[in-house]
């Protein structure tokens, strides 16, 4: 190793400078990132539990409905409404309007991504529709339904018009 090289590598300033430059380059990948908010809930990028908490925190709304329904999906498939949009359907299939007041979510396929997407209705604390959300199960840590309290489980089931007593004794 030449003296020049030895001097260079001994100079920790170069390593420090390099770390800073590389970190700045990495920051460009995150420059536009924003946290989820009540106005822009991004459940496809977040765990359902967070969406629920964020909603409660930022708007006082009741996004727990979405959270609870997703949990139900993983343990109680018979309670959902499947909608296969068929081949050739481009992009993410957003949910149609609820078929009945308590039918607040549906399941559809996203052929472009080759995976299931759960589309759900967000509701406010009065139960009124407050927009739609979409969630890609494959990219998320699921919330374990069994870890919810009994009252949370029951509330989740009631939201989709199921009888908690019946469902919880037969399916969970």
């Amino acid at each position, binding site marked *: 190793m*030449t003296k020049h*090289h030895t001097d260079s590598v001994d100079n920790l300033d170069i*390593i420090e400078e390099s770390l800073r430059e590389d970190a700045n380059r*990495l920051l460009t990948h995150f420059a536009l990132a924003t*946290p989820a908010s009540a106005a822009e809930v991004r459940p496809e990028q977040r765990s359902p539990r967070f969406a629920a908490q964020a909603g409660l925190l930022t708007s006082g709304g009741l996004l727990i409905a979405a959270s609870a329904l997703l949990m139900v999906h993983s343990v109680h498939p018979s309670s959902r409404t499947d909608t296969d949009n068929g081949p050739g359907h481009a992009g993410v299939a957003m949910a149609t309007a609820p078929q009945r007041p308590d039918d607040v979510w549906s399941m559809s396929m996203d052929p472009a991504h080759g995976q299931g997407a759960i589309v759900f209705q967000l509701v406010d604390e009065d139960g009124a529709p407050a927009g739609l959300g979409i969630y890609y199960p*494959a990219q998320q*840590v*699921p919330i374990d339904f069994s870890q919810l309290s009994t009252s949370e489980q029951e509330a989740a089931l009631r939201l989709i018009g199921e009888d908690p007593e019946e469902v919880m004794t037969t399916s969970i």
Partner: protein
Amino acid sequence: MDIVDPESLVKQYYPRILRTAYLLSRDRLEAEDLAQETALQAMKGWARFEGKSEPATWLYSIAFNLYGKQLRSRDRQQARRFQWAERNGQQLTSETADDAALRRELHSSLWNKVAQLPDHQKHAVVLRYAEDFSVKQIAEILNCPEGTVKSRLHHALQQLKDEMTNEFPVDDCGPESRVRGECT
């Protein structure tokens, strides 16, 4: 800029928190979880913020505390992911082009070597050289004496230097250029 409310604080620092989370976890989804949870906790805990430290250091304290918890529960989370994916016939990963580009960028940078440092050194390096916090601020965030921070930074840089020296043979492309990623 004076920060007077938690939303402004979070909005201002969110991309940086996300970068820090990524440098710590090296996983985009985990980083987003950590950053979002940090934002959430900051907003919830703002009323308890007494202003004894700067808002930014307080925010990063939250992030690092959460990261510690995330590390402890990582195995449990992984197991749950696999369990659930198996039950639903889903693929666990779905890397986007942006994620891949980010991963490549990380791998080609000196931060890839930082990832191999012991956690306590890595944390200090991230806060010093990615976030540009002072030693005093880092000590507040990591809740340790300033001398400890200095020592961790010193050992970390020495380690990086040693690795660079050992890794690259003496040739026309000197270590300085290697560090800068100018050599093939």
